[in-house]
Structures are given as C-alpha cells and as structure tokens.
C-alpha cells in the first residue's frame, strides 16, 4: 500500500498549440471588428446602438482573451487586456472547446446550443454582438468556410470583396505595428 507522502500533485500538460491558435483567432476577430466598424454600415448601426461606453470581452476560462472597447465614438480592439468588469463577456468553458470552434470543427451556433460557451451580462447586447460577429466572419472568411461559423451566409458582392480586402490589409497592418 502506498504511503500518504507518495501521493503527489499532478499538473496537467499545458495546451500550447490550442492556446496559440485561439490567440491568433482572437486577434483576427478583434481587428476584424475594429475595421468592420469603420467600413460596414450594418456593423456601425449595431455598435452605435450600444451605450456610449461599452466593453465586450471574449475569453476562455483560465485562458486567452480579447477585449473590445467602445468609447468616444470609436470601437477599438485592445488585445488581451485584463479587466475587472466587462459589460458583456462571451466565455468558452475550455480551451479545447474554443480551439474546436475557432478551427471550424464545431460551428458557433452548435457551440451555443451545446452550452460549450456562455454569455455573462445582458443577453440583449449579446444578441447584437453575435450579429456583429456574424458580419465580421463573412468579411474574414470565404463563403465555403463561413458556413461552418454562421447560420446564414449572405451572397458575395463586389462591395463585400472590397471590404474583405480592406479588413485583411488592416489586420496585416496591425500585425506589423
């Protein structure tokens, strides 16, 4: 029989790869939202309907996060800044869930239906944020990939293609900066 002292603490392996992938996706989504606010009238309309100062955070419990802040007429991606309070927080319950969702292996609607993520704060604003994210994902992703992430993919138009190019340019600029 083992002695009491033989029972040691077990520290599970860190999930580095999943964490990096999720961080990269958070960066893309954050920069995408910031750009979309400037170029897409539907996104602007949604964001402008939120309170004057409004923070929104997407996070993994015990893992990476991204913070968006609406303040003084701008909508900014602030990266992985820690905050005491966010008006709305979308939390993934585990890094593996976030990884599977970000890589399109679980669609975002399914993740919501499965309860693999939850919303902290007002669900009314949560609905508006989901609509913004849907538009951003159609800007970031080609239609054949976007269908993994959203329920209804809009038709591709020239305007959408131009906006997509601007979004990618801004993300690239954000990476260099």
């Amino acid at each position, binding site marked *: 029989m083992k002695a009491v002292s033989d029972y040691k603490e077990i520290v599970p392996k860190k999930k580095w790869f999943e964490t990096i992938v999720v961080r990269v996706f958070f960066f893309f989504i954050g920069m995408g939202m910031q750009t979309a606010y400037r170029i897409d009238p539907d996104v602007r309309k949604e964001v402008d309907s939120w309170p004057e100062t409004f923070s929104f955070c997407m996070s993994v419990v015990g893992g990476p996060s991204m913070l968006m802040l609406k303040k003084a007429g701008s909508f900014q991606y602030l990266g992985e800044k820690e905050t005491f309070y966010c008006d709305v927080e979308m939390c993934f319950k585990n890094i593996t869930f976030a990884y599977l969702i970000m890589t399109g292996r679980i669609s975002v*609607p399914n993740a919501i*239906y*499965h309860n693999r993520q939850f*919303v902290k*704060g*007002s669900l009314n604003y*949560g609905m508006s944020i989901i*609509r913004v994210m849907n538009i951003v994902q159609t800007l970031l992703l080609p239609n054949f990939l976007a269908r993994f992430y959203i*329920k*209804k993919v809009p038709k591709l138009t020239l305007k959408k293609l131009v906006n997509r190019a601007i979004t990618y340019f801004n993300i690239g600029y954000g990476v260099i900066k």
Partner: protein
Amino acid sequence: MLFKKNVVIPEYYEFFNSVKIISGYKALEAIPFELSRLGAKRPIIITDKGVAQAGLIKYVVDSFGGTDTVVGAIYDETPQDSSNIVVNQIASIYRANNCDSIIAVGGGSAIDTAKGVNIVITENSDDLLKFMGNYRLSKPMKPFAVIPTTAGTGSEVTMVAVIANPEKNVKMSFTSELLLPKFTVLDPRMTASMPSKITAATGMDALTHAVEAFIGTQKNPVSDAFAAAAMELIRNNIVTVVKEGGNKDVRLAMANASMLAGLAFSNSMVGVVHATAHATGGICHVPHGVANSILLPFGLEFYIGKSPKTKEYIESLLLHVAGPEMYVQTAPAERAVKAVAAIRSITSELNKLCGLPVRLSEVGVTEDKLESIAKSTLNDGALSFSPVEVSFEEALGVIKAAY
C-alpha cells in the same frame, strides 16, 4: 446530432435542475419539514393581492400549524409587473422581521419578485442593476421555495427572473443557477380557483414551453422525456381543466405539466415563438401565455418552411400533441402540418369554451406596432437558440400571419 426518428442524442449536451419537487394532495403540509431541513424556521411569504383575496395564503399558513415554524411576514402587494422598488421594500421587511427564508406564492410576478429579493438579501446590495444579465451572481442564496398558483410559467423550476426598473425604463433579466428554488410545492388547492380564461392561457403557455423544448436546439434525451410527458398531460387535461375548474385531479395534472415543461425548456431553450411573444408582451402588454398561445402555430409553420431538421422534430410532435392513433393514421409527409393543426384545434376549442384569443388583433395589438414588435424580436435572447437565422422580414412575416 445522432438522429434516428424520435430519439435524438446530441453530440454533446448539458442538463441541470436541482429543485426538489413535492406534488400532491395536502402537499403544502410538507413545507415546515422542508424548511427545517434547510435550517430555516421564519420565512417571509411573498404573494399578490389576487392570491391573498382568494384565500390561498391561509392554506400555506395553516400548513405550519403544530410545528415550531412561524411566518416572519406576509407581503401581499406584489404588482403584476414587479420592480426593483418593490423588491427593495420587501427586502427591508425581510430584514426588519428577522426572516431566514423566502416563500413565493403566486404566478410569474410573485416568483420573479421573490428571486429578486433573494438577490438583494444575499448580495447585501439594493442595486439590482449590478447583477443584471447572465451569471452575475456568485453567493449561495437564502433558502427559497415556490408555490405556484398558476399552471403555466414553469418559473418554479427555472433560473430566470425579470424585474422592471422604472427609473431607468429597463426590464432587468437575471439568469443564474443560484436563482433556482430549493423546493417547489404543487398542491391542487392552489390552482383550483383560477378563472377559466387564465387557466386556458397558462395551460397553452405550458404547452408552448413543452413544444419549443421538444424542437429546441439544445434538446436532449432528458429534456425530451420531460417535454413529452408535459405534452401528454396537457393534451389529456387542458380542455377538461377549463370545463371543470374544481376538479383537483386535472388541476394537479396541469400543475405537473407546467413544471415538467419548465424543466424541459429551461434546458432545451425556446425559439422564435417565445422571441415574438416576449416582444409582443413588451410592446403591447399582451399577457405572456396569451401571446404564446396565439403565436405557437405560426412559429411552427415558419420552422416547417425553413428548417428540414426542425420539420422532422415537428413530425414527431404529432405523437404527443394529438396522440398515438392520429400519429399512426397520418402519412409521415403530413405529420408536421397535422401537428400544427392539432395545436390549432386545441386553441380553437379553448376559444369557444372561454374566449381565449387566437389572433393578435383580438388582444389590442395594432397594425402600426407590428414592425416595432419584429424589431424587438431580433434582440430577444430566445432567438439565439432558434434553429434558423431569423431576419427582420421573417419575424415580421410570423407576426403579420398571427395578426
């Protein structure tokens, strides 16, 4: 989703409910024991004038006879649309009378108010706004029990409360597993005096909960079992309970149906019917049960045309809303349409019996409000659980069809 006719095993699901259910004749008499089990002996009773005037509180107080449990205070002035002002007022009474637990006796408003009082007392703050939204609460709540006097809302087993803030003109919604009562008591005496029209509307509310849970996006084998049992009870009892309000057996059956539907929908979630009903209630002050009853068939028709998977669920629905004979007699291709027709035949019978409205135009909704209702529908949380994306035009289509 692994799907094989009638049996759905999702790739992943969660189901939670911790409420102890006490149901039956003289069930109220179990309250003192249940409170003592939780270390409580001095509850505050929160109710409304209608319940008090119907003499229902007497049953609750009498159940404490012969025990060392006393009623700390009775608050019977809960308004129909409760507010943070009422909640703070009750919290002061709770503190002044050294109460140690909360019993809500009533319908949705009294129950939601009691949940609000529990937040204020537990968090020791009179600013409910700070706790608005999902998962904002963290402390274990005071012992809390619910005795429903309507059979429809299912609030006795749900983790949501909605309380108005008239100063800021907002309806504050609170969601947390901590808001769940410790136990609920379903006693047929408590619903026996409900007027027939309210009985019909609340019964249809329960049916809507069960139906939307059965076709909902988080449906799972556990929620399906509760939803199916609820629909069967409603199918067999809703007309009888409207005809024979004093029949304790059917009253108890409907109270159980409402609770079962509550268990189902609080886990499986609801969709376009509830989203449009919430918006209709918010803008035109239509009672929730009535709005649900009117919009249910139109919401289902919307799904039939939009989502093949949901259509398959609606086909299975026929078994529960119309019975096995009708189900086997109907060709599979016609089952979805027949299921909607079966629901319509229930509402039309209730319309003949007690005047339950079947159109939005009958409940004070005017044509110029339809667009505002559709706009408000898009911001309703229930819509995020709809199996299909709903646009403004589509929401307006459902509302116009029901008008």
